[in-house]
């Protein structure tokens, strides 16, 4: 909600040394270390009480169950880094899941690559609609995507008309995609990891990737120095839509039962994961690695609570508390580091 753009100069460095500057520069990485530590604590806590939790098969199960969210979270991270938000991802996943499963139901002999292509294309188109309205018509992203959250889901309902696609309606080959393994790694996890790595690389090593950070950090300045803000913001929404579309097809393949409600409410899960991962909701800071860790942490907490046999009625409250604790800790630590630096400045 914060629209301030001017450089905030809380910490000064009239007398700073190189070492100090280095230390500040490391704060970004400390964040991810902190997330790793949190993850370690959660895993250790659950693992001590229930050693089965640490079994490879269990870890694999946890990763599988968050892989789809992780894919959507990559796109959402791009969007949030540029100081926007995409609330329509759940609806895009749902629409893509239903439409591609329905397509396959109507044409069971269709090449599966085509189905994936279709899902991605559909997602990309929906994301592009968001992007056009935000970048070129100048409407705030939260307004646009709150609108398209309703619209895309409405379209989903309208084409589904109460029907659903069952496991029996689609070829076995489609259903087995999610369960396939490549080099011993479950496909779903592999796909999510590759997407995360590629996105990380692009964010770090492409000019456009850096410009995403610049826009999120100070949109007005970005425009003044000639960054094509509209185009880049558009691209983030396009990519977010595309990844959501892909996630939709994977969703259909994994759950094998798709109706028009699929993935409703997913946007909140995804945003929570990204934010817990240290991505600033006001843009400019954060990383894909962080977002992935955030996703894994929330997935692990959820799974840990289940395996420790918590009452289902406590799950949601603990989940909510975990989100709050994570972001509070992050804020407190960041502020401490900042304060430490100011104190060093003079003496």
């Amino acid at each position, binding site marked *: 909600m914060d629209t301030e753009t001017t*450089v905030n100069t809380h910490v000064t460095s009239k007398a700073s040394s190189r070492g100090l500057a280095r230390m500040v520069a490391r704060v970004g990485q400390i964040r991810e270390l902190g997330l790793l530590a949190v993850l370690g604590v959660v895993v250790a806590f659950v693992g001590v009480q229930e050693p089965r939790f640490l079994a490879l098969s269990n870890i694999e199960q946890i990763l599988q169950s968050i892989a789809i969210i992780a894919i959507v979270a990559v796109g959402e991270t791009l969007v949030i880094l540029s100081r926007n938000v995409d609330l329509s991802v759940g609806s895009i996943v749902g629409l893509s899941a239903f439409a591609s499963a329905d397509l396959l139901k109507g044409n069971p002999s269709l090449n599966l690559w085509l189905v994936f292509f279709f899902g991605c294309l559909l997602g990309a188109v929906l994301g592009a609609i968001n992007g056009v309205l935000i970048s070129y018509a100048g409407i705030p992203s939260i307004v646009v995507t709150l609108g398209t959250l309703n619209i895309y889901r409405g379209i989903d309902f309208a084409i589904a008309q109460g029907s659903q696609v069952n496991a029996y309606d689609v070829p076995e080959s489609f259903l087995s995609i999610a369960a396939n393994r490549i080099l011993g790694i479950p496909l779903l996890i592999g796909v999510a990891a590759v997407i995360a790595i590629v996105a990380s690389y692009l964010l770090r090593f492409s*000019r456009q990737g850096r410009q995403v950070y610049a826009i999120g950090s100070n949109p007005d300045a970005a425009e003044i120095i000639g960054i094509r803000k509209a185009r880049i913001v558009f691209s983030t929404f396009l990519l977010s839509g595309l990844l959501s579309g892909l996630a939709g097809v994977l969703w259909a393949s994994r759950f094998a039962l798709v109706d028009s409600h699929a993935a409703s409410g997913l946007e909140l899960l995804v945003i929570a994961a990204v934010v817990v991962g240290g991505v600033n909701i006001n843009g400019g800071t954060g990383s894909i690695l962080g977002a992935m860790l955030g996703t894994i942490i929330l997935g692990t907490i959820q799974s840990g609570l289940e395996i420790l046999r918590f009452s289902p009625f406590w799950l949601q409250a603990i989940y909510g508390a975990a989100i709050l604790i994570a972001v509070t800790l992050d804020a407190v630590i960041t502020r401490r580091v900042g304060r430490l630096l100011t104190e060093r400045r003079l003496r």
Partner: protein
Amino acid sequence: MTPAQPLVELRDITKRFGDVEVLHHVSFQLFAGEVHALVGENGAGKSTLVKILAGVYAPDSGSILLDGEPVILHNPSQAQRLGFAVIHQQPSLFPDLDVAENIYMGRQPLGRFGRVDWGLMYRETNALLQRLDAHFDARTPVRSLSIADQQLIEIAKALSMETRLLVMDEPTAALSAREVEDLFAIVRQLRAQGVAILFISHRFEEIFDIADRVTVLRDGAHILTKPVGELTQAETVSAMVGREMSALFPKQEAAIGSVILEVRGLTRAGEFRDVSFQVRQGEILGFAGLVGAGRTEVARAVFGITQPEAGTILLGGQEVHFSSPTEAMRHRIAYVPEDRYQHGLVREFPIVSNVTLPIWQSLSNWLGIIDQRRERAIATDYYNRLRIRATGIGQLAQSLSGGNQQKVVIAKWLATNPRVLILDEPTRGIDIGAKAEVHRLISQLATEGMAIIMISSELPEVLAMSDRILAMHEGRVTGEFNRNEADQERVMFAAMGQVTDGH
């Protein structure tokens, strides 16, 4: 010295915002290897012209010629490609990114496979920073830098490009005297290399120090362009304001009364330590120091924005603790912040609401309904007294020029009828006419019995206006001088960190 063919020529540039024409048929030429000063009052249209050269705004009519060929600047990157480097009045930096990226954003050196070559970027940045004598390195996050350092990055950015024209919109406003010297050394170097430099400043010493030629704008119109040798300061001023100007700093003597505000041993870790001073009724206490000396921080603590960790504040002999500005205001302290854009104005409010912002409550009846007639009367009064230049008290603050914005901020605080008025860089970025008015106002307020603290990085201003001067360096008070014993050298000495005993 000037070649026949101008490097850049502006022809008949006109720019309108809505139905207000802010530039009327402005034409002048910039030659390679000259420093060209652009001066004018606040709102004369200097920054607008800069933005046109930067490709941020398109002129409504007129053309820009580069090497005699007309060019159309569609966007900032195109201007950059033509070799126009622009330092805007508001730093346009990315606080979350490091120095190197701020300099090279959008132009990062690419290595194999079009991948950003971070190593090379850091090496080049460090080389640049060394040239500028900066004390921070390429990996420092910009968020942690002071305003002056941020300005330095803007300069480094301009140096990193293939620059043919360097445009600097008030680059020295936030710099200390020494930093200005460093900057001018670089400017001279660039001039020698044949770069054309368009330089904007409200400080005449600087203009007469560095410029080769001067162009004066008034109300959006081109008044004159002359070599600096053919102009006197007085001529320039009258060209700017359209009339003769009298004394710049009309300080009136005021009767100095009893101590109103006293600060003892104020300390806040990392900001300032053991700061003590007194201000009396009718007295102007000047705070001198280099940028970053911590004066703003002291002011913020006195005004309750931050809380001191040690020390006491006494008002009329009573110890007070402010946990918020609201409480400080209740004790009739007012603070005009240095960053008016961020801290001073509600940009989407008209002048009238900005002026009455802190006193709404007292303008309201028991139901909380604001008496709009009284509100307008008060705003109009200050509007006239401070000679704010706008279409009326209904104009939105965001569309005012910098100087007029500052006047609105001052008006706002005067409306609270304070006993103690703290002014932080009250004339930064203000044109010469407005500055004189602000000075007149300050000294008039003092004669009315107000206690005034004036923080300023312009030493001549502090010397001329203050009854007493406090010098600060790195968070400590390093000297205190009475009006008659203060001179430029001694105060400067103290501000540089040499502790002197003023008494």
